[in-house]
């Protein structure tokens, strides 16, 4: 029992620190002057851990020692997280400031309960699905300093393991980061990587709640879609199975959201579009195709004309490649060939 309480407390602390750091570095410093909307800011707070995994990827790509990379990242996150905690707690308070309904209190209580349950399940449930086992194996290799997969190799001769997936290592790298921090406290067992599913499911529900509250301005209406969203058995199963789906869906919906609200981001739209698209690609290979379709449709729909249009979207493309697409380019040119290769 004490192990469970300690485990849940550690998970809560690490996620809070991550988001507090995100709030300070990304939301306050970058987004603060552009938008004050809660949905915008929460999307960027939630995208920060993926950005962190991109930074770790680059550092490992340049063959820096794994312990050094994870250590530096942990110091950065914990340092900025603790430093930014007062601002983050003020921000969380302001997100809920207008609560004036018992229904909304019930929703927040249910969401908190859901997060606790998902952390509890992350601690007690074994790794049993094939896909999760593959991600967890990659995470373990990254923590052990084996960056063979990042260099384009999929077959691990010493164990006989072969990584089959087509996706960039965003999810296992994020899991490796959390589990590296946890291993300092002898709390390995892929607990952090399993908790990612629950956290991003909660974020999906929370951000949709904020969106509907803003659009309809009636607390009870804001909670209604949540009923419908969680009524799908498929979503519940996905949450319990500890899979990549919730973070994959969150990142691609962030892209859809940014495109729908392009007017609000004014001249920074193309940078923001590039960033969210790149991060979406780094989480899942399916997102690469979605991003391609979305950006193509946005390009066709754009009011810009001629050279200016191409220049703006070229800037977006550079961000997409730099923040996620690079993995697929390297795989296509030097690695297994990605979708063109044979798995």
């Amino acid at each position, binding site marked *: 029992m004490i192990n469970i309480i300690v485990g849940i407390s550690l998970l809560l602390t690490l996620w809070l620190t991550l988001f507090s750091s995100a709030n300070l570095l990304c939301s306050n410093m970058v987004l603060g002057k552009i938008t004050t909307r809660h949905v915008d800011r929460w999307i960027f707070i939630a995208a920060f851990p993926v950005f962190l995994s991109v930074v770790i990827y680059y550092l490992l790509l340049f063959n820096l020692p794994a312990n050094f990379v994870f250590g530096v990242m942990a110091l950065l996150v914990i340092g900025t997280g603790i430093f930014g905690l007062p601002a983050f707690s003020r921000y969380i308070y302001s997100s809920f400031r207008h609560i004036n309904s018992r229904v909304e209190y019930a929703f927040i209580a249910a969401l908190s309960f859901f997060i606790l349950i998902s952390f509890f399940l992350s601690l007690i449930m*074994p790794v049993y699905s*094939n896909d999760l086992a593959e991600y967890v194996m990659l995470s373990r290799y990254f923590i052990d300093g084996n960056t063979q997969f990042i260099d384009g190799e999929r077959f691990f001769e010493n164990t006989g393991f072969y990584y089959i997936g087509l996706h960039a290592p965003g999810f296992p790298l994020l899991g490796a980061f959390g589990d590296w921090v946890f291993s300092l406290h002898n709390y390995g067992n892929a607990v952090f990587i399993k908790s990612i599913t629950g956290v991003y499911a909660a974020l999906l529900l929370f951000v949709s709640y904020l969106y509907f509250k803003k659009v309809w301005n009636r607390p009870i209406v804001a909670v209604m879609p949540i009923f419908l969203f969680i009524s799908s058995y498929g979503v519940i199963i996905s949450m319990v199975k500890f899979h990549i789906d919730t973070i994959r869906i969150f990142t691609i919906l962030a892209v859809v959201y940014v495109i729908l609200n392009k007017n609000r981001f004014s001249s920074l739209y193309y940078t923001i579009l590039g960033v969210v698209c790149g991060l979406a690609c780094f989480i899942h290979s399916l997102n690469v195709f979605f991003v391609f379709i979305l950006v193509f449709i946005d390009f066709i729909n754009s009011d810009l004309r001629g050279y200016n249009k191409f220049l703006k979207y070229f800037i977006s493309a550079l961000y997409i490649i730099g923040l996620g697409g690079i993995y697929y380019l390297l795989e296509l040119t030097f690695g297994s060939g990605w979708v063109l290769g044979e798995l």
Partner: protein
Amino acid sequence: MGFWIKGNILKKLLPLILWFLVAWIFVTALFFTAYYLKLEGDVSSDLALRGLDNPLKLWLHGYLGQFFHFTVMGFLSWLMIPVYIYVFLNGNKVGRPVQGVLLFLALFGVLIAVKGFFNHRYIITLLPAYTVIVFHFVGNFLSRKTSIINPYQLLFSFAVFTSITVLTVSFVSNRTDSDWNAIKMKYYKWISARDHKKKIVKKSATPFATINLLNDTTIPTSVFVNELPIFYYYTNLKGIYYNPLYDFYYSAHGKVKLLEDRSDNEVVAYLTDSLNCRFVFTSKSKNSFNPRFADILQSRFDTLAKDSYYLLFVVKDD
């Protein structure tokens, strides 16, 4: 005057009509899922577990899964049809970004139907986007306050009713009579043996008897792993990773075929002599991917251990 009254009444009754329409879809969904899509035959096969084991199910759960896989998607895809019609007819009102995103979702839906239908997790990608879009349009529609009923109460009861119905459908569907008996038996067994079970779980390093046995026994040889990466996570043993569907295993030199051009005896000899594997770690569903490999396991191997997920075989001593 008379025309105005008729039109006004129609407007007021519209939410009620919509409500009954949606309720009718639910009831249809309930019956459809419970009576026509229940599992039949060999439920251990991967296709049966995915609900794709006959042509009807392949079309309804597979290609058209967005509309008929109620367990996964609820009924949201059906409500997207009026949204598409509205946007198609009133393109200028909604703006180009919304049109663009809806076009994307339509293309994405087609992509999922053609390429990603096998895995229901890909369909779920549409769920949050559909939820936001449907409720955005429904909310705007109800905000006009043309109804004789409070629109928000209507929407609230609608959401609660949906949640309960879809959860019921999910629980009822994909179960056979034997499944129901199995659930009952599991419950009785759990009641009588829960203390005993607790002790077993506490003693073992993992909840899987097969893996515990692998970890507790000194195994001098490699283990032939039938596409179960969990083996590498829970053990420190060397495994040879086999793909049963395409019949090859991964080696340092690339993919190597196992069953092709070999008799059953030769396969067993190849496993034990060339690959130095006397143990096979597998599961019932993975065995169903390759019936010949499963037959070899049944006839030439002994079951050493099994648990709720996995099986461990050892080659029979001659």
